[in-house]
């Protein structure tokens, strides 16, 4: 370790709608920052080399592996974690669908899966099963066999499709923020 690694830099970002400013070592990953500095432990670390997807969060609208991003790189960004999905005790439609479909078992990968799905459905609210399967291939789950996760996301996507058809939902713009 060198001074460059341990000197503190100030990072200023928005996390789950709240402005956050902290002095951190530049080597701290966004995942460690969320977990250790902000106590947002819903973001999990399953491999710390960018494969398993348990640490997926949404940064400026895109699903991002927070273990591969440094906290200081998130300066000025809008970061959303799994803790942002429910409104108080009210689960989001996606979380409700996961509950109905038994789309989680141990729950360790679930936060990352939900954030991948949230980003997908934001950009493509009527995503079909093949698109869901492809997006979900970024997240490893060892318990469920994925099928019920795909079913849960597809159910919400079907809802999105119907809402768009009925003119209740806006047709999304690519790159828009959730």
């Amino acid at each position: 370790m060198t001074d460059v690694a341990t000197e503190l830099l100030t990072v200023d970002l928005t996390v789950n709608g709240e402005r956050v400013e902290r002095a951190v070592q530049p080597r701290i990953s966004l995942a460690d920052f969320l977990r250790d500095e902000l106590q947002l432990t819903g973001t999990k670390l399953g491999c710390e080399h960018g494969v398993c997807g348990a640490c997926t969060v949404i940064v400026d609208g895109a699903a991002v592996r927070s273990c591969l991003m440094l906290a200081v790189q998130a300066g000025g960004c809008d970061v959303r974690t799994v803790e942002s999905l429910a409104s108080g005790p009210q689960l989001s439609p996606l979380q409700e669908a996961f509950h109905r479909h038994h789309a989680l078992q141990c729950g360790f990968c679930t936060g990352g899966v939900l954030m991948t799905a949230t980003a997908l459905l934001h950009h493509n609210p009527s995503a079909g099963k093949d698109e869901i399967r492809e997006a979900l291939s970024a997240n490893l789950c060892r318990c469920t066999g994925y099928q019920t996760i795909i079913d849960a996301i597809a159910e919400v996507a079907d809802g999105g499709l119907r809402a768009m058809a009925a003119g209740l939902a806006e047709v999304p713009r690519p790159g828009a923020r959730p």
Partner: protein
Amino acid sequence: MQDVLPVLNPQLVGARVPRVEDPRLLTGRGRYIADISLPGMLHAAFVRSTFAHGKIRSVDTAEAKALPGVHAVWTGADVTPLTAGIPGGLQIEEMKATVQPAVASDYVRYIGEAVAVVVADSRHVAEDAAALIAVDVEPLPPVLDAEAAAAGGDVANEDIPDNLVLARDFAQGDADAAFASAAVTVSGRFRTGRTAAIPMETRGVIAQYEWTTQQLTVWSSTQIPHFFRSMIAAFIGMPEHAVEMIAPDVGGGFGQKCHLFPEELVIPLLARELGRPVKWIEDRVENLATGTHAKQQLNEMEIAFDDGGKIVGLRQHVVGDGGAYNCFPWTALVEPMAAAGTVTSVYHIENVKTRFAAVLTNKVPIGACRGIGWQAPQIARENLLDQGARKLGLSPFELRKRNVVKPEQFPYTAATGLRFAEGSYLESIEALEQAIDYEEFRARQKRERDQGRYLGLGISVFNEITGLGTIAAYATGFPVTSHDSSTVRMEPSGKVTVFTSLTSQGQGHQTTLAQIAADALGVALEDVVVRSGDSRQAYGLGTWGSRAAVIGSGSILRAAEPIRRKLLQTAGHLLEASEDDLVLANGRIEVQGSPDKGMAVGDVAGVIYFAAHVRPPGMDPTLESTAAYDPSEEVWANGAHAAIVEVDTETGLVSIERFVAVEDCGTMINPTIVEGQLRGGITQAIGAAFLEEMTYDEHGQLLTSTFMDYLIPTASEAPEVEIIHIETPAKTTAGGVKGMGESAMIAAPAALVNAVNDALEPFGAFLTDVPLTPDRVLSAIPPRSA
């Protein structure tokens, strides 16, 4: 204590109840080991061997100790006086035990073995310091081939000069004579690769020592907090009542977390020495290298048939690659002994000859993993049965129908000595055959082959020993006493708290065991809370061996029974009715036929706790009861799997067109949970069949040390599984429940490998080295002529 108790009033048992644990886990509010933070907590990092085998010359820690923020650096020399390590052995004649050091002090015996540990203010500083430690090792020849090592030669572990933990022969009937007179024989040398359980959450340990009371608390991502608390106390020399162990939310186990690991001794010792909480969270590279591996076996198998397709004999030779030490508590026998003991499975085979050897090598210890030693012989046997069917001109369904144990043969004792009370073997095969439409498939397969597309059908019929209690453990060769207990407490308001030693790693016990308890006491699901994972309550052996449904149900029903009796006695006293006329259901106790004459359960409980003047004279005012359960018989679930695959002969890739699973696990507590176990297990099996293999190079260096190299199935590989349920209630368990958590990892790999071999049949190929990676598949296909 083996009373068989029915679920008297099944309202919730059998229902697709959504899981009560979900809201917490869906909102990121689960509390796994890495999420726990204690005041004053320090962080540990291990220095691990980069040699597969060698003698430690020196470990230089001076630079690491000097780094600001470092609180302790320990090597084997510091740890050895505090603990002798983990003794791995079973009370089996001629079996050799090993001792796995907590931190290596003289020899290193596998890549990843701990040689030093650093404790610092932060994980980052601990890792910085670990990088400053210089380990000087004199390399020794690594022993990497278990088959060769079984014959002697270089030694993997200096304590076991012949490399053999145990070799054992077994024979029943006269297999050699059966082979001599057989009409058809088939044989194969099957090698199943070294895999790993790969829970998405790695391991982790936190320990806190309170010097004023000499109390040690250990948090660990473990499946077995109660028994391991006893073992930690013994191995580090502390009184048992001064040690408690807590398993918080655990992010998957699949058997890997039912071992006691060196870190579970080292971290508590550090916490005691430093007087501050110490936390160690395993990283993925460590997990792949040191978190126990699984499954590696050689199965040489031969099956003999008469001209009617009846199996007349089976011979098997198993070699298990155990790694450098016996894992605790299962030992290196967890694969090969299980493989030999259950090889006849669902089939009636009178002449059996088996030999197994458990061999030490310079690799990480082999451990328990979903389906343990049963997966490998299942692959061998089921593939050979299909070879036999081809030679005999029979369908694979028909061949199996002629050989499974028939309904009229139950109760049945196998040549291996295993006993089966019941089993829907024939029914399972018939259900599977109907789902597949065999004749239609063969016609389609032929049409497609003519078009250059190679489809294959593979089936696999299985049984699974579940609810593993003492009798089942001994029957399979493991001399282990195996029971668990639950405490059921009805609170004064009629709400119910259950404490159980059956921990959950995602199986949903907070829901399924609450379903059992609610029905036992006639209350609603939301009136029950299930707590587990804490050695301060209800002792037991923990979750493994597809035990929790059976033993959880049994212990809860047995514990609830005296409470139910007391409620009825009190209600009878208050309502002036005979207990025999009372019905306990829907939160009320009513006189049968007179629903107006009744009381809420909570009112009865309140009377017992708080109304001394009206409760039955002499009644003890408690509603708490603890009971253990240990099934009185072996409990076998069964079923049958079928896979239809297509093999791409250009790339060697296999795609799964259909997967059908027939499962009979007796009374289902919650079919949704059963199906979740099946889908997850089948997907894990796809990894075992096609993707997953821990690979060591010729120096014993682990090549699959990241998720870039060790591939587990993603959503892209997972099929839509079709599930068919059969429910044959167990005759001998509480509620008729059987376990099923491992069934897919026993049955599905065999079906998948079988399907590929069926697809490649036109090429005369018969693949026996698993996983069937693209290069292995391609090697079986002759290059196309230009």
